[in-house]
């Protein structure tokens, strides 16, 4: 009976693949061009022409029929409250009768999986919140906003430069920045004062302060929430490149210097992995460490009772580089009228007024430099150390390149590899070689 089962299953596989094969349309140009990049170019030009024709057709005075825009997002509790408030304000105030419906798709993981499923089923929403490395497989379904930005956006240069770069990574403006955060150094100011030391500004400070703390308290001083981001930031702080479509760029002396700095922090017991404690915010709240580099949005999860929380920019070296994170607003709808309506909403969300309300309400960062300088935000910064620290390093913002295919893999591979190297207490040179090899293996 057993042999019969295996036989039947094998025949099922062969029959099915033949059946499924012809059922799907074999994409002719995918065959001939053979390379993935090629397909991407051809589809992009197509969407660009399409957008242009809309532009010229619609006269200067825009007429948008009232319509409903579906916006998929992954915001929850406090952030969802503020987003709903801004959206209601838009729905009531816009003169075209546009109503934006917010659809909460759970965590970022769930949102990315759902976008992928919707893309496969040709059922993408009108608009969504997305990281760049989610978009690689269906970038051809993203609406090109270059013309919208060129003709119908007040002062695009007011947007923080790092965000502008991130939003045009795919060769055209594919998004507008939305919930941006940066990695800052949270530390126990009381303990630092007791040690009679200042907040760390350079790599050396980290080492000296760390040694003083370890000597006095015994457990490791520093920690990092996102290892991959920390490695990229440290390389940039040492004037080195990180990774691009060709592979790892830091197999250089500068790269070795950076790896030595990082590995020494861990091998000498100055820094530790989060391991079983899951979030450093818990460890810092329990005063079991001196400080850690984490996302500015994590500030609300630190409870500083009995000590004062200090926040400062990420310590730098030759240059300063602050790792940014956060998603952008992306448009999918192919209906020209809805595109205009969605654009109105995107403009509203990135307007100076809305971005300040958003930043003050959620702890994310304003997307415009003018917003930083606005009176309301300056007053907010006076009372919020995290915002101040983020602002101080805003000129050094950078985001990790995500437009090459293996970007998602590199991000998780580097994090896992670094953990392994740290747990094995590897020597810097071996660590560098292993990391470079691991990154290149992802291509």
């Amino acid at each position, binding site marked *: 009976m057993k042999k019969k089962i295996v036989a039947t299953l094998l025949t099922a596989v062969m029959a*099915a693949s033949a059946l499924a094969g012809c059922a799907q349309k074999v994409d002719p140009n995918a065959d001939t061009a053979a390379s993935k990049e090629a397909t991407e170019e051809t589809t992009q030009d197509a969407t660009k022409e399409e957008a242009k024709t809309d532009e010229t057709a619609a006269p200067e005075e825009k007429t948008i029929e009232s319509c409903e825009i579906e916006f998929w997002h992954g915001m929850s509790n406090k952030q969802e409250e503020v987003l709903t408030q801004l959206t209601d304000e838009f729905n009531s105030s816009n003169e075209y009768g546009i109503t934006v419906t917010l659809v909460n798709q759970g965590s970022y993981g769930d949102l*990315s999986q759902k976008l992928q499923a919707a893309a496969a089923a040709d059922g993408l929403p009108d608009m969504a919140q997305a990281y760049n490395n989610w978009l690689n497989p269906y970038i051809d379904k993203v609406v090109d906003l270059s013309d919208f930005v060129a003709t119908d956006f007040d002062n695009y240069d007011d947007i923080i430069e790092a965000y502008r770069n991130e939003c045009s990574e795919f060769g055209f403006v594919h998004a507008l920045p939305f919930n941006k955060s940066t990695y800052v150094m949270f530390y126990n100011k009381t303990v630092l004062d007791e040690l009679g030391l200042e907040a760390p500004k350079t790599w050396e400070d980290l080492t000296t302060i760390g040694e003083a703390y370890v000597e006095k308290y015994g457990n490791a001083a520093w920690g990092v929430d996102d290892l991959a981001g920390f490695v990229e930031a440290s390389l940039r702080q040492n004037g080195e490149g990180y990774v691009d479509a060709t592979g790892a760029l830091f197999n250089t002396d500068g790269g070795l210097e950076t790896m030595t700095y990082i590995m020494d922090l861990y091998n000498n017991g100055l820094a530790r992995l989060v391991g079983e404690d*899951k979030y450093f915010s818990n460890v810092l709240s329990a005063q079991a460490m001196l400080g850690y580099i984490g996302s500015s949005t994590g500030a609300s999860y630190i409870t500083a009772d009995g000590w004062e929380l200090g926040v400062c920019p990420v310590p730098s070296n030759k240059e300063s580089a602050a790792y940014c994170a956060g998603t952008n607003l992306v448009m999918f709808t192919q209906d020209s009228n809805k595109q205009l309506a969605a654009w109105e909403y995107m403009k509203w969300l990135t307007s100076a007024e809305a971005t300040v309300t958003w930043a003050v309400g959620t702890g994310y960062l304003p997307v415009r430099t003018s917003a930083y300088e606005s009176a309301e935000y300056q007053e907010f910064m006076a009372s919020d150390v995290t915002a101040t620290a983020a602002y101080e390093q805003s000129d050094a913002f950078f985001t990790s390149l995500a437009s090459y295919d293996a970007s998602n893999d590199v991000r998780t591979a580097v994090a896992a590899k670094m953990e*392994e190297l740290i*747990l094995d207490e590897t020597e810097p040179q071996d660590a560098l070689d292993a990391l470079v090899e691991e990154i290149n293996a992802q291509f």
Partner: protein
Amino acid sequence: MEKKSMKGWLYLLPALIIITVFTLYPLIRAFSMSIMLDYDMIHNTFTGYGLENYQKVLSDKSFHKALGNTTIYAVVVVPCSIILSLLIAAMINGTKKTKGLFQTIYFLPYVTSVIAIGIVWSWIYNSRYGLLNSIISFFGFDPIEWLNKPKYALPALIIFAVWKSMAFNIMVFLAGLQTIPKEIYDAAKVDSTPRWRVFLRITVPGIAPMIVYSYIMGIISAFKVYNEVYSLYGGKAGPADSAITVVYYIWKKFYQSFKYGEAAAAAVILFFIILAFTMVQKLVRKFLSR
């Protein structure tokens, strides 16, 4: 049995329709995806047929690690869980007044939210104040960093998984134990059978079909382990991906690297491994029953 008739198919029809549409069709698509090169699920395009996906997956060392972890996991968790569940189910079935109470308690893990289980077990495993280490140090061993050190990742996962999978097995065995007529236990008593022999020669053979069921279902779900890793390590695959499992590997290939063909190939390889393990059981049973 009366002559062969088509009536059986009529009874199967409702289930068959649903299973064909929502399980068989996707399964066939997965099989076909596995031999399509550069398959892009979003645009439903591919560049030809071949076995490159299988070669890539079979040569990928993290797949080897995943397969190694998963096989050790399945080979250890399933038997342990069955033996422990059998003992506890038999004990519960033996009690009179407190049977309902114990049956309810041992069923609780099945209804507790996965998040709560994950948090509590990461507390049990904590190297400094965890319950497990306090027991270990009570017996004079030095504490183990269960969740931090890669080499303890798999043992920690296995202990957690045995605990989690017992609730279902106990329930199935308790249901099975009720099918054994009470007189048989009286007859055994009259034949002055020692309790361990009652367990081995009457209780166990009495619910042999349930044990086989739990074994096969255990193997299938053990090889598809993913949620346990997710809830114990909070989304990560253990320290430095040391507790990566095949389904975790498939999930990453599918939803992170967008390499659908390779994910499908890994799934097909897993399929044949599970098939082999479940068929081994039939050979063992034939051997035992001779």
